[in-house]
């Protein structure tokens, strides 16, 4: 007996297999994916991966990510499949994104280390993305150890405790309790001030930094079309800052040396 889920799975597998050679599995379709369909494609990717069809697996995971299901498992699997295919820069970008979404995941960290190690041994060892990920500062590790949301939650709990301390200090008639309340309130205030710094850094890094990595060498143009003059060539692995929203397949970026220009959207991956 073939279940309905099995039939759907077979159809999805077939669609991916057909589109694998032609590249016609469009984002427009993917954007309309329901969670159930996305899960089917994700499972199909796992099935491809299990059978050693890593390119097909990467494509399946890519569809899931493009459809907006941007979770750590999706990026982790995508990065791992890309690493199997040999697209190390792309793998690094996706694994870095997975780590951003799940900073304490051992598997993500392990595969990130593995790909970094492979790239450092190879010719791409000096690329900025490798430098950035391999030489993370202690400060980056500290604030990156928790998600921005987790930092905020901790600060909220501390603030709530501090508010409880304030309440105790001003409402009780017992001097000892009032003293303890004042201590809690002051301690919570100091702790909040201390935590606001890494929390702010993490919020900036995750929400406002808008960093991307170039995944294939491409020209940076003075305008959003091929006819504009070339400003510079951005090499694979170079980091850029995203400036504006995309238009006509191009996006305005700022390169490491401060110059701005337009790059094809498909040439970069957001970190």
């Amino acid at each position, binding site marked *: 007996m073939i279940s309905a889920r099995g039939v759907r799975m077979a159809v999805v597998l077939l669609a991916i297999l057909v589109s694998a050679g032609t590249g016609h599995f469009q984002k427009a379709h993917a954007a309309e994916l329901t969670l159930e369909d996305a899960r089917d494609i994700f499972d199909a990717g796992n099935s491809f991966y299990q059978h050693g069809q890593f390119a097909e697996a990467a494509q399946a995971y890519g569809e899931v990510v493009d459809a907006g299901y941007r979770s750590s498992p*999706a990026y982790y699997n995508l990065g*791992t499949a890309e690493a199997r295919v040999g697209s190390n820069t792309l793998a690094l970008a996706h694994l870095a994104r997975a780590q951003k979404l799940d900073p304490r995941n051992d598997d993500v960290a392990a*595969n990130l280390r593995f790909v970094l190690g492979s790239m*450092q*041994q190879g010719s791409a060892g000096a690329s900025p993305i490798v430098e950035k990920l391999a030489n993370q500062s*202690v400060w980056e590790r500290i604030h990156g150890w928790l998600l921005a949301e987790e930092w905020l939650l901790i600060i909220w709990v501390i*603030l709530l405790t501090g*508010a409880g301390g304030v309440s105790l200090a001003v409402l009780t008639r017992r001097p000892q309790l009032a003293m303890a309340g004042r201590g809690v309130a002051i301690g919570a205030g100091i702790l909040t001030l201390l935590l606001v710094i890494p929390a702010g850094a993490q919020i900036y890094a995750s929400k406002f930094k808008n960093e991307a990595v170039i995944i294939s060498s491409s020209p940076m143009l003075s305008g959003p079309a091929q006819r504009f003059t070339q400003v510079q060539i951005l090499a694979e692995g170079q980091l850029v800052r995203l400036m504006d929203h995309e238009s006509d397949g191009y996006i305005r970026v700022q390169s490491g040396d401060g110059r701005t220009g337009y790059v094809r959207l498909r040439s970069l991956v957001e970190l």
Partner: protein
Amino acid sequence: MSGNERNTDFHGLGRLMRSFTAWDIRRMMLLGWIAAWCLVLSGNVFGQAVPGVSASVKPARVTVGEVVTYEVSVDFTGRGQPSVSVPVIDADTGLSTPSNARTRQEREQYITPQGYALVNKYVFLYNIRTSKAGKFEIPPATVTLNGQRTQTNSVELTVADLPQAREVPKELEGLVAPPLVSGNPELQRRLTGGIFILPVLAKNDPYNGEQVRVSFHLVIDPDALREARLQPRTNLDGVTVPSMNQFIKEELFPFPQDLSFKERKIGDRHYLVAPVYEAVIASTKSGELEIEPFHISMYFSQAGGSQRSQLPPGFANDPFFSNLAPLSSFGTNTIRVIAQSPVLKLNVKPLPAGGQPSNFGGAVGEFEVTAEVDKRQARAYDDTISLRVKVEGEGNAESISAPELPQMPGFTVLGRPTTRTGGQPTDDEYVSTKIFEYTLRPTQPGNTEIPPVQLPYFDPEGEEYKLAVSDRIAMEIAPGTRPVPTPVQVVEDEEDPDETAPEVDLRYVSADPLPAPGGGLGRIWGALGVVMFLMPPALAGASMAMAWVNNRRATQVVDSRKTFRSASNEHLREAGQALSSGDYTKMAAELAEGIRLHFAARLQLSVAEITIPAIEENLSQAGAPPDLVSGISRVLETCDSAQYGGGLGLNQGSARSLNKEALALLKRSEDFV
């Protein structure tokens, strides 16, 4: 004739008619036309006439088992959407509640008592299944239109008993069900035992999950057809295969395009028998389970008419129906006959609990397990190996879960196995297969082996649990050619060896379900986060507000204490003046009031609470010595006695000493309150 004369001279119809001019006639025609349209409009727009409702049943006479159509017709003008509430009938009475509603809508225009109107006609059709013989009255249905409820008429239905089956051979007793011939009990009686579906079940009391073969055969007695003067007229009308929902079903022989009849002698009667369906079934639960009747609906012509019938494709090549060909020249009445099988009952036994292996996965039948790999030689970490475990045998493979793989040192199982199920009917059995494909990664170089894979199953023939075991597979694992990469030293953190341990390979992809977007802590960025972060300041603010209110109250208390204190001093001063002036009564009164207000201010008591016992109690609690407490009580009592006794007992000397003692006691009390 002037216009004035026409209006005043009305003597007789003839004169009146003659008085009309052509212009008047045109004006009257226009008015008539407008009036007619008003009539039409009133009928269409304003007419909300009571709907005409009626109920009927077709056909009104049937035999047990037949389905009749219950029809509710609603006619109305104007707008609205009628709804019907059908009568609820207790199934035990022999009729089912009307079900499977279909609606037919028609519109007609004609003159109604309310005017020329568009009449809407809705016909609601329901099925009623009959299960007992008798004369039934179906209660009225209720029609609701625009909030108005109207009841239909009740309907009579006569259900006749199924005719007694003709003599059937003993071998077929209990296996023959009469055909359904709508509205013709006599023909139904003639055909009973002459046309039916014969079920053949390999086993009536299988174990739960045991595979059982079931087949259905269309059986026709040519003599019975001849007696009834019937011959096949058209193709088969319809076939209803039992759904067998309580079983897992593998179809072996689907209903064929052309029926192939063979003559069989059962008992003393000759039949033409054609296999129509065959399947192997396995129950999904134990207990008494049923297989619903198999139905084949056919059309026959009854001899006696003038139309020449045509043999259907299904019957065209059959010698039996060729023999009936002479009758075809007479066929005129088309009769629908539904051949059916009886309900089959199976008593499914549960699997014995005793001796059931802990890793039993539901396999019932007789199975063999084989295991094979896609390659015997592989490189550690570089390659993956596909291990194919095939479970094959007589039994229901669909329900078998993946066998537990044995401990395999030197191999890692990647993910879950893929499964594939298949089956192949043989002459007298159905062999089903289920293939589980595992992906293994060798991790240790050397000559090693994949241990046997075991599958426990229940053998219904031997009525015991058995074990199917595959062979061992020898493997040669070579060292991997991929260089082991040097790990990246992310930071100088030597305390945590796990984080900097060399990664020999990429870790496997995540098989966890894809999480839904926007869940978890991500919600903190929405309104929830705003509410959360407003809570602490709100809590602190509310506490501070409460504290401010409390402070304000405390200030008022302090103010009152200040008032008491100044009043006390004033009274004590007045007492001194009264002493100087020789008014001892006033002195005693002022002194007592001064003492009481003194303690009211210091003990935070109201004036009403300043009694001698209260002062004693509070002073004692504050640690005042007993002589001080008793002295103050005594002074107050003396002052009160003098005050209310008109200064009795006080002279200049005693009054002065009383005043002096009181002031001394108050001064001493300040150390304690």
